[in-house]
């Protein structure tokens, strides 16, 4: 019995289901997770993931996710950085299909890959993946070389271009290091959901353990058609999208 649910399984299961089964019964986002006392090290028995249904998500929802992330993690109020220098942990994208002209809006953040290129290239092990699949920057080891930003296929990482003060207590951030979406790891470790997921508060964004066959996210992924961005790179992302 393998607990791993890889890309191929997803494709198999989703192609077996008919297209358009987007509605799912459960509207619960706040699933109760198995007791995690946060005294014990996280293990690879879990893999945290997110499923974003772009058909259900309004643009206002996405804006709300961005500002919830800013509020929670304290980015976005930098004074000196201009334009592309500003940190962006999550952003709203609008994409149009070249053939059909269909326009889709979606939030884009760190995709928490199973095989993260940013971790492979980091010379000092600062870019790292926890056992439970959350990809983080260990700012204690980050020397600010920005190689991970070159390697990331999702433009998910930001470099802090200026000195910061008054950071959030749970989210240290500092000049000269690289940062990105942490999947609100400080909340996940306390059995809470990430801020962006909580802000939407509907089944448009589901957070949970991909490996847990009883979790909402696992069951939904078995039912609906979903996709990974840049699936061709075979990175097996933790963040999945349906509707794109």
């Amino acid at each position: 019995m393998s607990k791993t649910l890889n890309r191929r399984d997803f494709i198999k299961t989703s192609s077996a289901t008919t297209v358009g089964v987007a509605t799912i019964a459960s509207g619960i986002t706040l699933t109760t997770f198995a007791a995690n006392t946060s005294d014990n090290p996280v293990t690879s028995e879990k893999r945290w993931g997110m499923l974003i249904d772009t058909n259900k998500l309004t643009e206002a929802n996405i804006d709300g996710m961005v500002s919830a992330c800013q509020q929670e993690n304290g980015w976005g109020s930098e004074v000196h950085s201009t334009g592309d220098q500003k940190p962006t942990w999550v952003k709203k994208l609008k994409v149009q299909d070249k053939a059909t002209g269909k326009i889709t809006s979606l939030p884009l953040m760190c995709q928490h890959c199973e095989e993260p290129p940013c971790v492979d290239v980091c010379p000092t092990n600062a870019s790292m993946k926890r056992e439970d699949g959350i990809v983080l920057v260990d700012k204690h080891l980050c020397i600010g070389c920005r190689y991970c930003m070159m390697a990331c296929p999702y433009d998910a990482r930001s470099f802090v271009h200026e000195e910061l003060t008054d950071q959030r207590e749970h989210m240290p951030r500092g000049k000269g290091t690289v940062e990105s979406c942490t999947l609100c790891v400080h909340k996940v470790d306390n059995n809470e959901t990430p801020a962006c997921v909580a802000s939407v508060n509907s089944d448009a964004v589901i957070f949970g353990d991909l490996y847990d066959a009883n979790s909402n996210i696992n069951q939904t992924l078995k039912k609906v058609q979903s996709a990974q961005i840049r699936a061709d790179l075979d990175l097996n992302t933790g963040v999945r999208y349906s509707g794109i």
Partner: protein
Amino acid sequence: MNIRYEETQGRSLGFYALISGLGILILAALGAVYYMEHHGHYVTGMSNRIVWGIPHVFALFLIVAASGALNVASIASVFHKKMYKPLSRLSGLVALALLAGGLMVLVLDLGRPDRLIIAMTEYNFKSIFAWNIILYNGFFVIVAVYLWMMFERRMNKFSSKAGLVAFSWRLILTTGTGSIFGFLVARQAYDAVIMAPMFIIMSFAFGLAFFILILMASYKWTERPLGDAVVDRLGNLLGVFVAAVMYFVVVKHLGSLYLAENAGVENFILFDGGVYTQLFWYGQIILGSLIPMALIYHPALKSNRSTLGLASLLVLIGGVIQLYIIIIGGQAYPLEMFPGKEILEGYGGIATYTPSLPETILGVGGIAVALIAITFLVKILPFLPESLANEVADPHHKG
């Protein structure tokens, strides 16, 4: 026949002028670093889209040139070409100095240069960068040993073996430098195995161009004889290397154009990339390749030191431009995130980058560090043969 090596005197007005000129550049670079590190990278032209700016261009240019500068010594020790033998010591020195300059720039552009010790103690062996740190440090050690074996008479007999090790190491080193880009699967501009061999051949050209300029300048300023035999040979070699770089550039771009996935970024660099397209055709191809080849191979300019010097300088300028196009141009073009879809909002478009003054000064400072190191060391140790006249360098030369 014995070659006599001698320190330069280093007491002339010109020597002090050179030292102070380079010293000012280095001080300016350090000032620029202080300014950038104090404020953070927002004072530079870099951003989250163009994460590596002009300092990386200079740093990689110098690192690539460094491994190439060692070739002159390798030709003597590995390929047993006697005429290059007297040039070996200088070749090793130029290689070390250029590498030191390049690494200085690379390190001082880090977000946290104060944490350099972490880069030396924490290794992720999956990272090409970590490998490069080992390769660069190893290069210093190996070339230093190689130089020692050339200097120390009792060790001379081992010098060709050491030369072979150094030659192999430098090939691996440049492969590593090229692979920094070659393994970036996410970026259409880089993801090509040909990057590594192309970097090797680029290093041949840039390193030799540096070497020719330094050799001619030091012999002119110390008023030592330097015969046409040596200069012509080096000049011809430079021409071959420049042609080889052009060949690789053509193959790389043709190969990329063939892949529909890469067509976008190729069109961008070659045809509609504005400043990058102009830099490519006018800077890299015409100024940095075609004109130098004409200057080297035109029969009327044979053995003309001034035009060879100009050709070498143009090769170097073309090299900086080539790396600018690779590094900055490759980042300016957006990532292909949604094949078959167009991104209307939130990401995409060509990222803009204007090199700021401090980062440019830092880059130039790297060259100054390399040159000042060479200027001092040829004064302290006997790197330069007292004569490279035709009859000394190549007894069979027919003028």
